[in-house]
């Protein structure tokens, strides 16, 4: 029978090492939760206005203070979590200052105001700045597995962004959270960092108390409820939930180092880590050897002496978790797993012997599907890497995974197939201590992102301030008239590549700007109705147009070069000649050139430019459709045929249209009339002029 942790407004914990009772902590009342949040809100503006650098200085000092008082942390974590001093120093306490300094470096460029990129042509006189402003009061709910370090990711990010923070530590580790608030609070302004104590009910009260954003770290089951509650309050929530991390051990791994690495990341913090290895996939080739060495190493770890000072693996932190671990191991054995070492409780406290389970072949067993959160290493033997990847991805969780191999290239390739937030090669999960690295997962591991600039999007919101210095009206304002429509059409034409249509755009914009203001001054549609008078600019444009367009048309009429004629002739011969054994009489070269010239000259501008484009694209087609720097006429007959075939069947509509143009061009004069008549294949009616 589990004893209730929270009862009668008091939190009662026992030390997991020897189950002696700890000093009770009072639960925060509902009214006090509201009051704490209200005080935090009152304190936040000053903290926000302090400026980034000032906040950075204060937070660094607070970090130093936490390091100086590390002895208090060691004692508290021994009592609340039964952790060994070495593990506490390396895993929790030591990170404080470094974490803060790194967060400052990550956040500094992100939080600077940024200029809004805005087109001066489309939006004249307008400028804007995008600022990252703090959300206000951020609530942070954290679990018990790392009673101190769990706070580093969210608390420092929220504070450096200018938010006030209200913590709700787990009811299994209330004292560590209170210590953090007290220690940092000595250097931060009053009420900027506060905490409330209690169980799930207090957590719910915190969410309902009017906070502006929430970060929840904990189990998937609770995460879903929290997300629902946050949605009701319409506040953003960042969820960082459980994991079921896999290690894929390949036959070519660095054997000893892999054994050591897998053992550490599976058993660190007694396995109570969201980023701990909970599944090990080993290739058959080395499985026997691997299990043997791993079991030997695990069995040699010290536990259960009753004194964490002389243990490698500490006890579990809470009673309920110990029951889960026992249940998982029992379930695995029932499903055919073999216990190689460990597998049972030990000592007076919440100790569990580090366990290696071999032959976990049934993918349904709990130890492979649900977070065990204990010192258990299930081994799954696999045929090859592909099977391991498939099994890894078949899981409902996707926080981290690691591949252990000497072939780094292959390791990288496999890593990219894994459906996880972070994939490691030859290591695991250590990036949780690096603020620049996103810590996130997929599927049931939650959609939150802790650490990195991605996380700052949760603790700040963008505020855009736009200034318009333009003294003229905007061209798209009322009234709507024909000029506006023309302007719209021309802007659209410019975007689809008709540059010429854009020449008049500045004039139309100027006219629209005048019209809008005249409309307001002179009233009802008078301005729009008045006969359009041509201003100086419009007249100047007319003059330019009169000169420019004939010039362009003339350019379009410039005769074809010899090379263009050759390309056109070769194209037509390829389209219209039957090789080999073509019974038709080839058209003489000069005559063919004449056909092309005739056609080109007859097409109106700009259609003749289209023909020119078609000739060029055909002439140069081999350069893009086949290797070798050759133009069409330099290819062999068959290659010419293939090239043109490829063009006629192109996926591109434009190319097909060009192709059709060439087909028509040739068809009109070259093939249909001359060639067909030359073989008498088609009795084309004679011209009546020739009849008499």
């Amino acid at each position, binding site marked *: 029978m589990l004893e209730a942790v929270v009862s009668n407004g008091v939190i009662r914990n026992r030390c997991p090492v020897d189950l002696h009772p700890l000093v009770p902590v009072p639960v925060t009342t509902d009214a006090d939760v509201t009051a704490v949040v209200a005080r935090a809100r009152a304190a936040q503006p000053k903290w926000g206005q302090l400026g980034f650098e000032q906040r950075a200085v204060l937070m660094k000092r607070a970090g130093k203070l936490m390091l100086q008082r590390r002895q208090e942390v060691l004692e508290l974590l021994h009592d609340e979590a039964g952790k060994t001093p070495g593990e506490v120093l390396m895993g929790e306490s030591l990170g404080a200052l470094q974490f803060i300094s790194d967060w400052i470096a990550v956040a500094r460029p992100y939080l600077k105001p940024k200029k809004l990129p805005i087109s001066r042509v489309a939006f004249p006189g307008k400028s804007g700045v995008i600022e990252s402003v703090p959300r206000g009061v951020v609530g942070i709910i954290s679990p018990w597995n790392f009673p101190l370090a769990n706070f580093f990711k969210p608390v420092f990010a929220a504070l450096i962004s200018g938010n006030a923070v209200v913590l709700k530590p787990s009811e299994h580790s209330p004292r560590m959270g209170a210590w953090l608030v007290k220690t940092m609070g000595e250097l931060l302004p009053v009420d900027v960092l506060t905490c409330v104590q209690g169980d799930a009910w207090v957590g719910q009260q915190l969410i309902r108390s009017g906070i502006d954003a929430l970060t929840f770290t904990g189990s998937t089951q609770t995460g879903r409820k929290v997300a629902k509650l946050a949605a009701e309050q319409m506040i953003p929530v960042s969820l960082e939930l459980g994991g079921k991390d896999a290690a894929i051990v390949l036959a070519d791994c660095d054997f000893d180092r892999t054994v050591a690495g897998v053992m550490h990341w599976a058993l660190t913090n007694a396995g109570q880590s969201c980023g701990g290895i909970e599944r090990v996939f080993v290739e058959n080739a080395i499985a026997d050897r691997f299990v043997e060495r791993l079991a030997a190493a695990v069995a040699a770890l010290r536990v259960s002496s009753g004194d964490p000072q002389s243990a490698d693996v500490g006890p579990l932190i809470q009673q309920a978790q110990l029951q889960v671990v026992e249940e998982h191991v029992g379930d695995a054995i029932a499903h055919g797993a073999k216990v190689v070492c460990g597998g049972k409780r030990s000592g007076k406290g919440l100790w569990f012997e580090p366990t290696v389970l071999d032959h976990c072949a049934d993918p349904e067993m709990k130890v492979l599907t649900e977070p065990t959160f204990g010192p258990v290493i299930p081994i799954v033997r696999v045929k090859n890497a592909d099977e391991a990847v498939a099994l890894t991805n078949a899981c409902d969780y996707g926080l981290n995974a690691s591949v252990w191999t000497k072939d780094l290239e292959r390791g990288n390739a496999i890593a990219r197939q894994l459906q996880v937030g972070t994939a490691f090669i030859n290591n695991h999960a250590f990036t949780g201590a690096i603020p620049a690295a996103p810590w996130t997962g997929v599927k049931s591991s939650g959609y939150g992102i802790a650490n990195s600039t991605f996380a700052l999007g949760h603790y700040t919101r963008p505020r855009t301030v736009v200034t318009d210095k333009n003294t003229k009206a905007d061209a798209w304002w009322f009234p709507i008239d024909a000029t506006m429509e023309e302007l719209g059409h021309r802007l659209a034409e410019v975007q689809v590549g008709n540059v010429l249509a854009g020449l008049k755009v500045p004039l139309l914009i100027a006219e629209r700007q005048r019209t809008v203001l005249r409309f307001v001054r002179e009233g009802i549609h008078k301005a729009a109705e008045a006969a359009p008078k041509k201003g100086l600019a419009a007249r100047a444009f007319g003059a330019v147009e009169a000169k420019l367009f004939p010039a362009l048309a003339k350019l379009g009429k410039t005769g074809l070069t010899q090379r263009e004629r050759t390309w056109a002739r070769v194209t037509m011969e390829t389209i219209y000649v039957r090789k080999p054994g073509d019974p038709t009489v080839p058209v003489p070269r000069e005559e063919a050139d004449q056909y092309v010239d005739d056609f080109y000259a007859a097409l109106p501008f700009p259609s003749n430019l289209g023909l020119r484009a078609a000739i060029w694209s055909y002439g140069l087609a081999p350069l893009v459709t086949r290797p070798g720097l050759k133009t069409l006429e330099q290819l062999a007959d068959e290659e010419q045929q293939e090239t043109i075939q490829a063009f006629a069947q192109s996926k591109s509509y434009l190319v097909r249209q060009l192709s059709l143009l060439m087909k028509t061009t040739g068809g009109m004069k070259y093939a*249909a009339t001359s060639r067909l008549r030359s073989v008498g294949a088609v009795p*084309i009616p004679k011209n009546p002029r020739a*009849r008499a």
Partner: protein
Amino acid sequence: MNAPSFGTSSQLFPDDLELLPEGSVVDGAEVEGDLDDIADYVVIGSGAAGATAALQFARAGHSVVIIEEGPWVRTREFSPDVFVAMRQMFRDMGSNMASGRALFPLVQGMCVGGSTTINSAIAWRPPEQVVDGWNSHFGLGGAMTFKALDPHFTELERELSVRPVDDKVLGNDNRLFAEAATKLGLKSERVQRYDGGCDGSAMCLTGCSTGKKLGMAVTYVPQSLHAGAKIYTSAKALKVESKYGRATGVLARFGARGRPMLRVRARRGVIVAASAVQTAGLLQRSAVRLPALGKYFSVHLATSMTAAFNHSIGMEFGATQGFNSTHFVGTDRLKLEALCLPPEMTLVRLPGVGRRLMDNLMNYQRLLNWAVVIRPEAYGTVGDVLGKTMARYTAAPTDISRVRKALKVLAEMAFAVGAKEVFPSIHGTPDLKSPDDLKVFDNASLDPRDYGIMASHMFGGARMGPDAKTSAVGLDFQVHQTRGIYVLDSSIFPTNLGVNPQHTIMGVARFGAHKILATPLPPRG
């Protein structure tokens, strides 16, 4: 002026210069200085609408000047060579496009007679419910009912010898179409045409060189000139000039920039009949500012399908279009037609290039070609951009699915009469070897860019209606908020028709001209 070069035929055609009243034709290509003229009515365009209207005014005793942008290509000058025909008589050599998701060529005649010189001379009256729909749904309110148009249609049919295609000139393409339709149980009709004794030369599309197709250039234009009208050819109307809100005349230019100008003053009015593509742009250039001008532009979309047989078909003989099927007009807004194409145009429909293409073309004798015209639901816009008319048109997905359905029916028909191979002319769709392959149509692309579609009949852009906000032309055929500018061509049609429009255009123009003649002139302002 130099006399045009005559062909060697001893036969005389109605459009021969020597048969026309002296001085009634001014060839703009040969004009060397600016010209001024004056007439009661100035008609812009000599196509189905312009020529019909001009004849009515001339017969009523008014002086009329017709301004035509294209040249007058005489019957004796017609060549069976498609290149020559397109160069002389097609606007921009057929390269004028409506842009949108895909490019649709806007095929229009640009010569005396307009598109009537290069079309298949099909004379169908419009569906009664379409015309009456204009009255009930588009605010015409009885201003132009089918009943009112009826006597005009009757008169046109008499004057222009409208009759069904004769058995003698049916040709295999049409005959097989009828046969296939019967086999599939589809309703099909013998086409009615403006037929002056067709020889079955299958050359409608390049200008009928036998002179038997009764287009405007050999009928109403010469008749107008005999009745006292005058025509300026190769003269592009730049704008309608107005003063105090009243049309005073037309400014035109004989060809490209820098060529001499023509100014014709209009005593009574200017009749704009420049086609649905050109009219809106011309009015925009004429400083007409109406929100609906250039909107509600609609078309008929057309494409065709070629099939190969084991035996000879011979598309070079027969009526160009002698049979059609209106079976699906009511249900799917599409109309199937037989269509004989000359080899140059058939080429575009044949798949592949090189040996494959030539093998197919060498089989020209054994090919037949059938077409589909659909009545799309989409509207586009048309208007003047830098002096050139630009049209925008994107077909609706339902329209393309109708084209696809029609091509499937045509392919089924072809197989029903023994086709060995069918070229579906949809990009990415293989050639069909047997009726079993018909299912490829069900999964064929619906992207308009994968079809060889052209816009064959154009409507709207200056549609008729009572309200100046939603229409451009009033119920009296005058452009809203102006006096003396009348529009009589298909640009006033509120919707497309579903059948070949020449007859409707002529009927409406004739009706409109009589209405204008019957209205007393307003006092001069």
